[in-house]
């Protein structure tokens, strides 16, 4: 029986090979290479690496050695990592608070209205991220629109980075939640209301549990890119406060320390893995 289904129902199996080759050589290999690079020595002329095993890169990230040769925790890198996690967490939280009601609101409209609203949420997502970031530069700058209306100048502060990231990732949160909220059975909500449940009770006890999958998916696809963001911190935050994305960029660029840059990328990768596994595990638990 199994033999019969072997050739694949849509065509020969072999046509997938180009995609597999691409996946192995240009997705798999780069990840292996940076993992290997993170255990190598820094190149002499600042570029590349020397093929000698060492834990120096990770030591640089976590510890510092003073003139007396005493080791202690190096808080500069750890602070940057912690700050990035905190920022990504806050962005995700605000996207949740704004995105969940928005997605539910859209899902409970007429079908034709839903289509228009979803298009409206999707359009900013198709506009170049630089243009969207620039829009906030215009609003938040000195003499910018908000400043002219009497608001303080937020450009080149962490607040601007935070606003820019929330702005960039809100559609990412709304779309997956909408996809599961769309399947909500209105009659269940109606029944709950008829039986006297309050609005909050219906929202928290019925609606939210029913759109759990969408929420987990939204959290993962907002938190991960927010953690490694580069454009918004560079343009809106003015790179004043280092984040992990700009730090990695810096190590591969100006500082020319590829092993440390690789080690940081591996750490970011590990954090991504943890987030993906934890949101996926939840899904499995719910499914069973």
């Amino acid at each position, binding site marked *: 029986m199994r033999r019969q289904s072997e050739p694949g129902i849509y065509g020969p199996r072999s046509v997938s090979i180009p995609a597999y080759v691409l996946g192995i050589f240009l997705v798999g290999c780069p990840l292996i290479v940076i993992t290997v690079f993170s255990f190598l020595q820094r190149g002499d002329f600042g570029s590349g690496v020397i093929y000698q095993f060492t834990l120096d890169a990770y030591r640089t990230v976590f510890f510092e050695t003073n003139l007396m040769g005493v080791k202690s925790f190096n808080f500069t890198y750890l602070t940057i990592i912690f700050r990035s996690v905190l920022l990504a967490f806050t962005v995700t939280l605000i996207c949740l608070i704004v995105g969940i009601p928005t997605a539910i609101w859209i899902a409970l409209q007429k079908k034709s209205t839903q289509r228009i609203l979803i298009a409206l949420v999707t359009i900013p997502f198709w*506009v170049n991220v630089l*243009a969207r970031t620039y829009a906030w530069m*215009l609003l938040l700058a000195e003499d910018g629109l908000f400043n002219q209306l009497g608001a303080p100048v937020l450009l080149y502060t962490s607040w601007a980075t935070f606003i820019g990231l929330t*702005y960039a990732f809100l559609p990412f949160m709304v779309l997956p939640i909408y996809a599961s909220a769309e399947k909500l059975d209105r009659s269940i909500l109606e029944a709950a209301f008829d039986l006297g449940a309050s609005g909050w009770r219906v929202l928290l006890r019925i609606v939210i549990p029913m759109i759990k999958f969408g929420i987990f998916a939204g959290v993962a696809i907002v938190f991960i890119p927010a953690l490694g963001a580069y454009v918004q911190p560079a343009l809106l935050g003015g790179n004043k406060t280092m984040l992990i994305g700009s730090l990695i960029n810096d190590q591969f660029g100006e500082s020319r320390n590829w092993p440390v840059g690789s080690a940081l990328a591996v750490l*970011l990768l590990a954090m991504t893995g943890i987030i993906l596994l934890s949101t996926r595990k939840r899904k499995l638990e719910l499914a069973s």
Partner: protein
Amino acid sequence: MRQRTWSVAHLPMIRPMGIASLIFLYLPLLTVLIFSFNKSEDATVWSGFSTRWYSTILDNTDLIRSAKVSLSIAIPCAIIAALIATGLAIGIGKATGKLQNILRALVNAPLVLPEIVTSVGTLALFSLVGIPLHYSSLLFAHVVMCVPFAFLPIRSRLRDFDQNIFEAARDLGASSVRVMTKISVPLLIPALLSSGLLSFIISMDDFLTSLFVSGPETTTLPIYIFGLLKLGATPEVNVIAALLLIIPTLGLLVGIRWTTTRRRSNEARNK
């Protein structure tokens, strides 16, 4: 008779939050659009309507050159990514083998990994193998990024079709190559267009991968614009940002129109 007619308004916070987030999403875009028609030399202070800054754009040779570089990558990237994604969707079918799952996860990884990780990884790989940072290296870095997105419309189109068509063809003795050329590929043509469009936009928009993997001759439009933005707001950048907003939006609206009229005519035909 029911006592209370139920509506969305009964759920707390839902409507105000929904409306607020639409305002939040569109206020910045509208601001850019309006200020691109500002007469003033000052990017942020309104002094009257004018299209003068739009005409200065055409004289900016660096901008035009980088736009050409971006197009010369995005167009082949869209075609290659759509073809590779089609191959993936057709070949993988409904297979759920362990090896296939791993390979598929690898191909789809750029969807979920932070772009900074994949881009420095690609840079490290290219420097290790000694591949120069030039046109084709950038093109392939873009293709890798686009394939998982291009895969989505194609897979959903294949799944939406009556699966019996494929099985019937097999039962009647068609070879798998014949099933592909006579059934799968013709059915996929509309999906190929949307996956190509998707890849085109992603490639045009990409900044981070291009930043790491491009050489001096392959400065793409986003890299050039990033350089401008670092210097702050100017009337010229207002216009560039407005164009980056208008062009994909118009493209998208035309695309949506086209698919809805197609769907309507299909529905009418089915009736």
